[in-house]
């Protein structure tokens, strides 16, 4: 068994195999779409392609209703129209495998040996979830590659590249903006003194530590990339671009059932005076937890980013299974440092899947059988939130920070 695993995870075998399996899935998906009633390809892929078609006709991609992404994505997928419908899917699986490669490089930089690093990478490369998501035509792998690229450049101290990739990732989806706080905390000038008592001097010293060359460089490059892209697309597509890409996601109040227990509150209070305030109030638990996580763990950036995204997704007003990929791509980075046994790890995984299963039951009965299971769905959503919180607590308490021999060299 041990030798089989070693053979399977030999350096080029694993990446080639990962790509080949995904390619096969794309081919199978094409076959299923053509022959069966239930389609393999996700509806989102058709939305992207329709938007790309509008672009090739010289119009705005937002003519396609429910296209709520950056125009950059539709522009990247214009070869779907000129070359082949499969181009987008190939792009997504390439980004997917590249994410695996980035995970491998980050693990190596953090001090793991090649063998262990490849085994951990296999958790992403041979994982059916990202395989399925990318081959079905969802664009999550692009963002995973951008976020992992940012983290790799931060680990290797290539700040300008990190800032460029970070600005690009925030442009594509809003959630990486939460990484700004731990990145800022990580880049500020660290002092060896402990802040034992709050005094004005230590407070000024604290704020002053943010004013250093590296942080300034990072902020201006990332901010510059983001603003340039926003200005460009605003010039091309106007307010509709701003609304669909950003404002919609910030003010989104999805009253239809999803994993988040907030859905029921939003549904019941949709027409009340307080619905705006309730929506804003729902941000508070997320915000507080993110602040605490940033302060406690900013020294280990991949772990902090993982916690950030996991908290953000779990406590969000809308939660669908697509969002899970946002933090699952960071999980391989922290697994080597968890002191959980394999049994405990698998137990947590089963618990996580059980939570989803318990939700899917009543949701199926509501949507496809017409029973009124709203209360059950809401309870299942609460249970899932509790399970997620428990898993996160287990991860935090069993985490051993890395010794980072590389970082000592820079200091």
């Amino acid at each position, binding site marked *: 068994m041990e030798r089989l695993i070693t053979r399977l995870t030999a350096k080029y075998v694993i990446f080639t195999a990962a790509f080949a399996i995904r390619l096969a899935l794309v081919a199978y998906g094409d076959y299923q779409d053509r022959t069966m009633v239930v389609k393999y390809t996700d509806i989102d892929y058709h939305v992207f392609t329709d938007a790309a078609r509008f672009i090739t006709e010289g119009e705005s991609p937002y003519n396609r209703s429910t296209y709520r992404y950056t125009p950059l994505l539709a522009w990247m997928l214009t070869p779907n129209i000129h070359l082949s419908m499969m181009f987008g899917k190939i792009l997504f699986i390439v980004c997917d495998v590249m994410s695996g490669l980035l995970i491998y490089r980050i693990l190596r930089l953090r001090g793991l040996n090649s063998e262990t690093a490849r085994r951990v990478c296999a958790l992403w490369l041979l994982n059916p979830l990202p395989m399925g998501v990318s081959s079905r035509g969802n664009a999550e792998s692009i963002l995973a590659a951008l976020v992992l690229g940012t983290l790799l450049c931060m680990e290797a101290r290539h700040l300008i590249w990190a800032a460029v990739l970070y600005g690009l990732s925030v442009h594509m989806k809003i959630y990486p903006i939460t990484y700004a706080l731990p990145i800022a905390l990580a880049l500020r000038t660290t002092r060896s003194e402990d802040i034992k008592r709050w005094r004005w001097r230590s407070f000024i010293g604290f704020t002053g530590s943010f004013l250093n060359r590296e942080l300034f460089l990072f902020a201006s490059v990332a901010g510059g990339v983001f603003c340039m892209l926003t200005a460009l697309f605003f010039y091309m597509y106007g307010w509709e671009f701003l609304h669909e890409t950003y404002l919609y996601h910030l003010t989104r109040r999805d009253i*239809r059932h999803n994993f988040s227990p907030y859905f029921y509150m939003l549904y019941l209070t949709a027409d009340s005076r307080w619905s705006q305030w309730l929506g804003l109030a729902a941000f508070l638990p997320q915000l507080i937890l993110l602040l605490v996580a940033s302060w406690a763990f900013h020294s280990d950036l991949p772990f902090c980013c993982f916690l950030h995204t996991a908290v953000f997704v779990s406590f969000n007003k809308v939660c669908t299974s697509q969002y899970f990929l946002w933090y699952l791509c960071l999980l391989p980075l922290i697994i080597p440092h968890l002191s959980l046994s394999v049994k405990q790890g698998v137990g947590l995984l089963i618990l996580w899947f059980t939570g989803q299963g318990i939700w899917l039951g009543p949701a199926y009965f509501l949507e496809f059988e017409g029973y009124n299971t709203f209360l059950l769905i809401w309870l299942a959503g609460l249970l899932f939130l509790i399970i997620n919180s428990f898993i996160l607590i287990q991860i935090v308490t069993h985490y051993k920070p890395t010794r980072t021999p590389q970082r000592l060299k820079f200091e």
Partner: protein
Amino acid sequence: MTGNDENHCGLLKRLLESSRVSVEINKKGFHREAVTTVELSPDVLSGVRVLLVHRWPRGVYLDPYQLASLSDESDWRILLDSAIDLELPAHKTSGFVTYVYPTVDGPTPRLLKVTIPVHGRYHEPSYDGKTFTSVDIEAPELLLRTEKCTQLSIFEPHAVVDTPCTADNSSTCSWVKLQHQQVPLGASSPSSPVTFLGTSSPSSAHEHTRASC
């Protein structure tokens, strides 16, 4: 020529008198199918075109993109009278009208079946303990037309309406509308109106739930 015209008009009149249209809603939950059946009797008239006009209530919606991909695989075409927002709850929308043109590529058969996927909207939550609400879907209006009979005024009391000739909405033609809904005999299937069970939620039991969120 006039004789032939009269012949065609006479046949059209007989079609109007004995043809039947009915609708059945299949499946359960929020995603259903409206199966419309048209029986042309006593005999199909060559050159006659059929148009089904569905007036949908606000509680349901059709997915234009799903319809477009279905159109590729079937022989009917559909025209919507307004843009459809797929995500709004029922009380924030109004009903809409669709025009279905069956068998666009060939002659009209005696028995027509058109299946349209229908989706339920979320409704306003209830405050009186009701856990379900009904959405009523009526059978569509059956409109007939033939090139060979142009004096449509003779078909009183069946109304004459001007509606698009085809699904691309490029021109308008005069159609004759079947005046009343025929109820099929026998107890096999319901006709009109058909109740479609939507859902809303009981709120009285959840007043405290709302507060604790």
